[in-house]
């Protein structure tokens, strides 16, 4: 009994429980929507969304589908890490989407137009994201502009800049609104797989980007919780004035935080576009959803870098699963609906945790009262 109580008190157990609750609530409402659209296939549809690659017929096809999901999890994880890192330092990096766009812009331009090798493109993508992040940071630190507002503005500015730059003759395919295929223009620009593709039935989009992203999550976790640098950043986030008083360079810390966040998001873009998974569409008129899904993954992951690994995979898994359901009956955007619901419920996490703690406190009080009663009863006898 005692063990169970202390388990519930553990913050990480609470985080996992509340995240699971958000997921269950989101899936439940998604299921109800499916039931309303068509009751007969709803059970199978929600199963497809959850199982995703497991629904394929042969083991080889399953592995290949899993590879695709993993290939898209890597960029999502990087975006989630970007938001998670900044949030830990007290900054809401809604501009991750814009930093992701800048990463795609510089990375793809270097790869297609300048025919650079992949590692150079990767670094350029990181620089692109970092620069945009640093602008947000500079505006926040020295000009008192809220990072959410400048982030939103920069998302749109970066989108149009990227579209303009990538629609040049050197990068854009003449017949379609997409950029040229990397595999045909510059094979060296593709992130290598070092044999990882063999594990996933020769899925060429499975590259070293996936282990890289996981390693990045671990590094971010170590920086935030085990180093002096991370401690300084967090201290600045909690109280700028106090950090200044303690001799930290608070303005520099804000800029550095957002630059690192930007670099992570920029690398995220490189992890998607430099694997040849898809091309950039220069006519897109809305900010890519990757940055916003990153917000979902961050909060679902309990704002912990390691938690985001699992939550990114989960979000990507249901997104891909949504594409597999019977499209003649159900719209595939049902999985977007579910992940949006999950983000909404994540807003209630604070409340859920409060309730759990209240519940524990009440139970403890009752137990204590019982003990006292029992002791008193014993005395009377």
């Amino acid at each position, binding site marked *: 009994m005692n063990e169970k109580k202390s388990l519930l008190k553990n913050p990480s157990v609470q985080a996992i429980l509340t995240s699971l609750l958000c997921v269950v609530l989101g899936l439940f409402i998604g299921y109800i929507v499916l039931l309303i659209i068509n009751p007969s296939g709803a059970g199978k549809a929600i199963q497809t969304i959850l199982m995703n690659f497991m629904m394929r017929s042969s083991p080889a096809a399953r592995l290949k589908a899993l590879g695709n999901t993993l290939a898209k999890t890597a960029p999502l994880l990087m975006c989630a890490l970007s938001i998670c890192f900044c949030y830990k330092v007290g900054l*809401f990096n*809604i501009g991750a989407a814009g930093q992701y766009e800048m990463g795609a812009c510089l990375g793809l331009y270097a790869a297609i137009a300048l025919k650079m090798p992949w590692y150079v493109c990767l670094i350029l993508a990181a620089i692109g994201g970092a620069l945009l992040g640093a602008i947000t940071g500079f505006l926040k630190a020295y000009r008192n*502009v809220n990072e959410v507002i400048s982030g939103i503005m920069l998302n749109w500015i970066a989108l149009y*800049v990227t579209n303009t730059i990538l629609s040049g003759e050197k990068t854009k395919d003449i017949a379609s609104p997409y950029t040229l295929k990397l595999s045909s223009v510059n094979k060296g620009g593709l992130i290598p797989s070092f044999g990882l593709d063999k594990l996933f039935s020769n899925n060429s989009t499975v590259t070293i980007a996936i282990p890289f992203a996981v390693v990045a999550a671990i590094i971010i976790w170590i920086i935030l919780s085990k180093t002096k640098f991370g401690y300084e950043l967090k201290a600045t986030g909690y109280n700028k004035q106090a950090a200044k008083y303690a001799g930290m360079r608070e303005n520099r810390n804000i800029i550095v935080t957002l630059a690192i966040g930007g670099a992570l998001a920029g690398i995220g873009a490189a992890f998607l576009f430099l694997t040849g998974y898809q091309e950039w569409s220069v006519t897109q*008129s*809305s900010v890519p959803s990757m940055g916003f899904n990153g917000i979902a993954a961050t909060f679902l992951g309990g704002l912990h870098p390691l938690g985001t690994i699992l939550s990114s995979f989960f979000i990507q898994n249901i997104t891909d699963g949504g594409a597999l359901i019977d499209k003649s009956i159900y*719209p595939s955007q049902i999985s977007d609906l579910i992940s949006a619901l999950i983000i909404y419920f*994540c*807003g209630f996490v604070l409340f859920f945790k409060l309730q759990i703690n209240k519940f524990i406190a009440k139970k403890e009080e009752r137990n204590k009262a019982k003990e006292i009663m029992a002791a008193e009863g014993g005395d009377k006898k």
Partner: protein
Amino acid sequence: MTLLIQYTFLFASVLCLVALGGCFSEHSGIINLGLEGIMVMGALGGALTMSSMDPSTPAIIIVVATICVAIIVGMLYSSLLAFASIHFKADQTLVGTALNLLATAAATVYVRAMNTKINPDNVSTTVQYIGQKKAFIVNLGGFEFNWFMLIAVIALIVSYVVLYKTRFGLRLQACGENPQAADSVGINVYKMRWAGVLISGLLGGLGGICYITAGVSEWKFDVGVAGFGFLALAVMIFGQWKPTRIGLTALLFGFFRALSNVYSGFSWLAALKIPGTVYNMMPYIISLIVLAFTSKNSRAPKAEGIPYDKGSR
């Protein structure tokens, strides 16, 4: 030229309505980042009302019904934000973002499910309202006057009066500046914040339906409202949370937005060979620069974004 003026006024009306919505919400102390989502929902409600009506119904009935539904849907949707951020102290930025994603996803799912039910091969997300849309337009010698332009002007005047000349408006602003002080003199902060968010839902929904009837007669819901809610936020900040300035800013931003639509029609502008994306970018760049110079003494409501806790000091 008339086309440019017409589009400028149309886009300005949208921006003005939505930015005023944001203005009410922020004055009550709740940051409403979900304006984009509220617009989508209002647009969805309005578009479905229009498409379900017979185009031969009297214009006035179509206009009133569409506007009413858009307003109601917008308010209902904004109550999701109010509920989470007022009673459950949720992170307002997070909930706002969730509302934006949720609105586009829900609208897409709904429209697609509806379209496929009518015709199994139709997987589009388009709602058409070609005939019904004409109800909103009065032709004034080449210039297509849209009823929403009038509504936007009325909303602007009403907002000014409500915010500065009525007891309600001043109390609302008190809740955004110093909720503890407001509470101490007997103002119910929770109620005021609910009112602020609901008004933003009303105006946001109205702006949404206004946007999708501007120039087009069908709407693809999988693109949402293409960032107009965010542009409206920029208008609000640029306007320093003041209705009159918001009106002027809306005109300026509306002008740039209109220019990106019709610039190819002007020979001297087309000759400059500036890509259309530059005009799209302009409003954002300008507001970012202005923000950089004015934010040191920003007029933003002081308590916005902070959940109200009766017990805190």
